C-alpha cells in the first residue's frame, strides 16, 4: 500500500533482545534460529521474529509485530553463562528504543538525518545500516510487511525522546505524524 505521507510508530513496548560473543552465531543456530553469517543482513524467522546479524559476533532480535513472542522470551530465560558457549545475553529492551517509519518518502526524510542512501533501489528489504541518525548511533533496518515498506530505527533508549522529536521534525514537511502502533500491527 503506497503511503504519500509518513507515519511514525513507537514500538518500544515490544520485546527485543540480543546476544554477543565469538560463539554467538553457532550458539543461536543451535538454538533454532535460521540465518547466515552475513553481517548487516536480517533474517525472518517462522514465528515473525527478525534476527539481525550485526557482525560475525552479534545478533539483535526483534520480536514479532503482534505475534507470539514466547520464543524470544525462551531464548532469554534459558540462557546461562555457565553454559560457556561464548555467547552473552544483551537485554536490548534496556538499551535500545525502537521506532518504525512507513511511507514512500521515508528515504527522503531520512536523508535529512543521515548520510546513508536508503532509497529502495539501493537499500533492499532486510538490509541493515549501523550508522549515525540525528547524530545518534543507530541501527536502521528495512523489513517490509508484505507490500508495505517499513524502516525500523533502533537507538539509545535514554535518548528516545530526542530521537522521536528529530523524527517528527524531519517528517513534518512530508505530512508525517506519530500514529498508534496498532495501525502497524494490524
Amino acid at each position, binding site marked *: 500500500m503506497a503511503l504519500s505521507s509518513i507515519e511514525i510508530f513507537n514500538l518500544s513496548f515490544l520485546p527485543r533482545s540480543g546476544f554477543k560473543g565469538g560463539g554467538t552465531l553457532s550458539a543461536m543456530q543451535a538454538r533454532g534460529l535460521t540465518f547466515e553469517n552475513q*553481517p*548487516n543482513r536480517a533474517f525472518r524467522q517462522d514465528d515473525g521474529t527478525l534476527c539481525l546479524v*550485526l*557482525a560475525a559476533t552479534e545478533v539483535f532480535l526483534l520480536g514479532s509485530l503482534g505475534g507470539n513472542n514466547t520464543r524470544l522470551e525462551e531464548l532469554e530465560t534459558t540462557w546461562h553463562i555457565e553454559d560457556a558457549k561464548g555467547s552473552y545475553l544483551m537485554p536490548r529492551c534496556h538499551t535500545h528504543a525502537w521506532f518504525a517509519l512507513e511511507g514512500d518518502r521515508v528515504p527522503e526524510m531520512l536523508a535529512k538525518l543521515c*548520510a*546513508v542512501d536508503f532509497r529502495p533501489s539501493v537499500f533492499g528489504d532486510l538490509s541493515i*545500516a*549501523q*550508522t*549515525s541518525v540525528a547524530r545518534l*548511533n*543507530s*541501527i536502521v533496518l528495512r523489513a517490509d510487511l508484505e507490500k508495505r515498506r517499513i524502516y525500523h530505527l533502533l537507538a539509545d533508549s535514554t535518548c528516545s525522546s530526542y530521537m522521536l522529536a528529530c523524527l517528527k521534525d524531519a517528517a513534518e514537511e512530508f505530512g508525517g505524524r506519530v500514529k498508534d502502533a496498532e495501525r502497524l500491527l494490524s
Partner: protein
Amino acid sequence: MKIMHCPLNGPRNIQEFVWMGDVKKVPDQANCSDAEWTDYLFIEDNTAGEVDEWWLHSPSNYLFVARRNRLTDEILWTKKPSDYFTDDAP
C-alpha cells in the same frame, strides 16, 4: 563530507569514526620495563607521514586498522584486523 570506508559497514561519514591510536607491537608484559610499558600505553611517535592506526566505527563498535598519511590526512586503505595481522603486522 569526508568519507571513510569501514571494512564491516562500508563507506560512512568520517564523524562516525573515532581515532584509537597507532598500531604498536605489544611488549612482553611479564618481562618489559616500566618505561617500555608506559611508552606502549601512553606515548605516541607522532610520525609525519604514513602510519597504521586503530580506528573505531562507533555505531557498530567495530575496531579496524587504517593506513593514513598524517601530512595530507589521506586514508590509503582500511582492513579488518584479521587481514591486517596476516598481511602487515608490525
